[in-house]
């Protein structure tokens, strides 16, 4: 049923329809609305049987999810930013043990400097922790990906992270098609665990493994993700058949068939990119986009096919790998090994900096002229950067960066943007 609803609410309702038996949650913006809504659904009895566990930290949230999943319960949690970092050790345990937990990451920047706004620094920091990572382009897709994620996780016995842009998606109210419980039940059958902690049939999970088999056990997580490269498109095709819309899959192309310039990105910024592409297409520019939905596993072959015909690829990403530059772009370059084309990395939207059509248009025009540098910071205020660099050069005790630069950037108020 079509409803005008907040993204967080829609995701909460979708998760509830997946019938999780244990939800553990610790509040952190911008994820909080999701678990708040779920806690209400549990309290009112709309979601039952389900145990909602208020935990004392994100480390505990993931630990409780691990314990619940190991007993054969369908387990869910959600987090963001520092919360994700605080559960890192447990994240590796969930994937190493092969427990099919589903978690929403409402993407948010990581401090310092402390910042609650959106970028992809949090989930990108955990790209190699063994979890599958799916990135939602819209709120509709965020909802849909959660339903697919439980099936994907449980078929492979591996955990799945659904990443959705904090605030930009989680707090946006828009038209979303909410499926019926019967539709979700038909698509997502009950969880059949590969391993169960059961007092009546005791086993142990989590044995210490020495050099004789450690690499082999670790490899299994990789093998599962490689098989996810086949399963993810199958689940998306099943989903299309059952729900009548395109959602999920590995990558999605937009007007890229004859494109000389292809923009690669993840998440909600793809919508703004598509609108910009439509305008540039009207001006005659051959430009398209490829959105990456599955960042882990990384679809090397599919991206190679989708990008090989372009003259240049612009990777626009919302995270910065300090000391090298791009994260997504490094992965995309691997997909393009041996293919001669221009590759550009653009870091954009860090800490919630708006990514505007105006800036994208100028950026893409510059790229089409091959006038971009290898690493670009979109809409960077170089003036305050250079002033701080000069301050550092002139005085040993130049003081804290953030405070200095805030003074230079002037007063902040809730103005037009």
């Amino acid at each position: 049923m079509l409803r005008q609803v907040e993204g967080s609410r829609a995701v909460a309702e979708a998760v509830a329809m997946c019938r999780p038996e244990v939800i553990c949650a610790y509040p952190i913006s911008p994820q909080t609305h999701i678990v708040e809504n779920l806690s209400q659904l549990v309290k009112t009895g709309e979601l039952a049987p389900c145990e909602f566990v208020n935990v004392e930290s994100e480390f505990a949230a993931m630990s409780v999810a691990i314990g619940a999943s190991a007993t054969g319960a369908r387990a869910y949690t959600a987090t963001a930013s520092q919360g994700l970092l605080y559960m890192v050790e447990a994240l590796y345990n969930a994937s190493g043990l092969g427990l099919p937990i589903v978690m929403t990451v409402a993407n948010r920047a990581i401090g310092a400097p402390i910042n609650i706004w959106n970028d992809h620094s949090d989930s990108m920091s955990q790209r190699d922790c063994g979890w599958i990572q799916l990135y939602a382009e819209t709120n509709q897709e965020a909802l849909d990906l959660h339903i697919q994620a439980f099936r994907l996780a449980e078929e492979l016995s591996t955990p799945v992270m659904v990443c959705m842009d904090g605030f930009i998606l989680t707090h946006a109210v828009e038209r979303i098609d909410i499926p019926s419980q019967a539709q979700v039940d038909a698509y997502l059958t009950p969880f059949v665990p590969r391993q169960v902690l059961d007092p009546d049939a005791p086993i142990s999970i989590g044995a210490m493994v020495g050099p004789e088999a450690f690499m082999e056990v670790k490899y299994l997580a990789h093998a599962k993700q490689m098989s996810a490269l086949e399963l993810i498109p199958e689940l998306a095709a099943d989903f299309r058949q059952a729900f009548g819309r395109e959602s999920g899959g590995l990558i999605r192309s937009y007007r890229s068939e004859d494109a000389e310039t292809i923009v690669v990105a993840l998440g909600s910024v793809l919508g703004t990119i598509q609108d910009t592409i439509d305008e540039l297409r009207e001006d005659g520019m051959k430009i398209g986009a490829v959105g990456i939905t599955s960042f882990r596993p990384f679809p090397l072959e599919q991206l190679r096919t989708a990008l090989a015909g372009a003259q240049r690829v612009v990777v626009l990403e919302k995270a910065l790998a300090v000391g090298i530059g791009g994260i997504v772009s490094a992965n995309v370059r691997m997909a393009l090994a041996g293919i001669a084309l221009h590759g550009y990395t653009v870091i954009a939207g860090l800490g919630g900096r708006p990514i505007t059509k105006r800036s994208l248009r100028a950026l893409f025009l510059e790229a089409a002229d091959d006038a971009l540098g290898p690493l670009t910071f979109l809409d960077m205020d170089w003036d305050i950067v250079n002033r701080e660099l000069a301050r550092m050069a002139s005085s040993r005790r130049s003081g804290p960066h953030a405070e200095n630069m805030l003074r230079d950037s002037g007063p902040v108020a809730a103005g037009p943007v």
Partner: protein
Amino acid sequence: MFQVRIHGRGGQGVVTAAEMLSVAAFNEGRHAQAFPSFGSERTGAPVVAFCRIDDREIRVREPIMEPDALIVQDPTLLHQVDLFGGLHRDGFILINTAKSFDELGLGEFVAGFRHERLLTVPAGDLARAHTGRPVPNAALLGGFAALSGLISPDSLAQAIRERFAGEVGEGNVAAAQAAHAWVADELRELSGAAAG
């Protein structure tokens, strides 16, 4: 696409106003996207929320920098925040106040705008009369429906009732209807003045 930017202060229901406007548009079968300016939602602090309305899917995710309409829930923001940034000269402005644009000191600023698109309405007073609280958001939307013709009073009333149950909902619907009537009267006076 029609883009609305709503300015106010934390506690005045700015984010809820954008949400209800989007629901009203949705009730008319249109696509709408409402979202807050994130992070600054503290009581009394300047808050901005946005609403886009279109007949096709809305993909763009940037803040609204060139609005077609501005709704100002708190006139004390006039001298604190760049409220009018990006507004074009055909744009609509609706301000919650019993004063006129001239009395607010805006007469000169809006000289180049279309006068039938600039109005003030004492939405806080109307809200107090009908709900007992001076939260002006629903009343302003009623006034905005009359000023812009963008949404019907009926779909707005439905949106308000979906958001607020019972007495609160009915009080806000009444406030919205009163503001709608107020603005419609003002518009009639303006067109009468223009004709006469």
